[in-house]
């Protein structure tokens, strides 16, 4: 019986959410914007081409680099568990691992990957 009551509440809540969102959608639709209100503001100027264009994401090399090194961080979670049992040896191994990664950063720096494209 309690399960039936809970299911009823869920159905009623979902039904009223549906009605409210439909009503809200129609209300927003009625707030009509003119062609000029939809235009981007350009200080009285006009746009000649559509803004649906592909532009250069200039931080892409930095973003890729960040993702690569961010994924290396995943190895540190199991390492934290191992470190409790192994102690200093695990610490030295992790320092070696980070040292190799640092060489990678230095290489990326030399290749000017950290500069704004």
């Amino acid at each position, binding site marked *: 019986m309690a399960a039936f009551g809970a299911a009823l509440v869920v159905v009623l809540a979902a039904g009223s959410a549906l009605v409210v969102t439909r009503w809200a959608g129609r209300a927003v639709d009625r707030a009509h914007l*003119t062609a000029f*209100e*939809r235009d981007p503001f*350009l200080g*009285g100027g006009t746009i000649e*081409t*559509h803004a649906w264009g592909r532009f250069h994401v200039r931080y892409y090399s930095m973003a890729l680099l960040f993702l690569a090194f961010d994924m290396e961080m995943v190895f540190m979670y199991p390492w934290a568990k191992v470190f409790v049992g192994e102690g200093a040896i695990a610490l030295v191994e992790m320092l070696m691992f980070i040292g190799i990664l640092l060489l990678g950063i230095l290489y990326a720096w030399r290749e000017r990957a950290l500069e704004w494209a």
Partner: protein
Amino acid sequence: MLPRLAAGADVAVFPFVAAGGRDAVANLHLARGLRVVETPRAATVLLVIGRLTRALLEPLLRIHDQMAAPRVTAHWVLDDGPDPLMVAALPTALRLPAGDAMAVRSVAVELIIGGRPSEPAALTDVEPAVWRGVGPYGQGGTGMTGGVPYGRPLPGWAEDRDGLKLDQLQLRLGPAYPGLPPGLVLDLHMQGDILQDVGIGPNPFLAGPGDPPAVMADAKAFTRAFSAPVPVAELEVLRARHNVARVAAMLRHLGLTAESERVLRLATQLGAGDIDAVRRLAGELRRRRSLWWATADVGVVGIDGWVGPIGRAAGAAVDARLDDPSYEGLGFEPIAGHGEADSAGRVRQHLAEALQALELAERAGSRAHDPVAVIEGLRGPLAADRPTPTALHLALLSSLLVDQEWGDALTTIVSLDLDMEEAAFDTALQSAGGEVAQ
């Protein structure tokens, strides 16, 4: 209750500067009870300042219709004469005396509490083109979008500096874009935030058929000095105020709003005895790291072609006051030779020249400036037989801006102190042969 609370807040104003309005708009940021906003969408009041020209009419109406209701237009008129263009374009706009901020506020408060109706749209609401494909739901057709979205073609391709070939956005910015000097129109080709091509649009302050002649509103004393004696101290105090106001403009552009207002207030109150106040300001700004970080190595100019403070900041020791007999015996030497051709150098130059102008004003006492053929104006030499400084600088602007990122380009433009009214005045000055309007 809510409208009354809203009426108690500062009124959001979008200024639209027309011919002769540069002076009145300069101090709008200091007006009590008003808040200058960057877009018409955020504004309650569209404040038209000065006299409309035909070239300004269409941009004005477009901006008017981009405001959200409730909206009202106020017109700060500079003289008592009628402005038939304004009356025909926006008949409901209220004529108010120039500089009367309280009147603007009263109009807006009346609108907010419901005592005044919101203005209707000035232009007909017509879609440039219907965006509809061939399918039953408007989908499909030719090209990626299945049609021409809102009457505008998709961007073309262009080479990027990174070796990629990506889309290029084409747009016309101005004449009332807040980051640009009033009246400047830029035709831009942008790849992301990089300017790939920059064209200078027609100057809307240039008097066309049926328009009143251009006047150089913010430098009346300088134009008067061509034909009549003017106290040297008056010219130099004006120069000092202008230089300090340029520093305020750069601070505002960089988002240091409170500091900008403080500096602008100092600029409006500056007198010949205020050397210490400017010296203190220079000392404070020297420690303002964010100002120098944002302007260093931005907009580096060559030494050729640039005149006035910009040319002198780049190292050219050229100043019409050197050959002006009225400055003899005042110990005048142009400040030049630092070779700081970037935006930071120009800010330092403005500060140094403001100090120098106040020192000259103090030394000059009551000495009168006799009329001469060439006068060192606020932005460089003014003469009947040569282009004004802004006209010279506009010719060099495109090549300076190409390949800059958008933020740096705006910083460069602010640092160049362009005045489109001065550029429009160019032709008026030459046709009058030096006998210019007061």
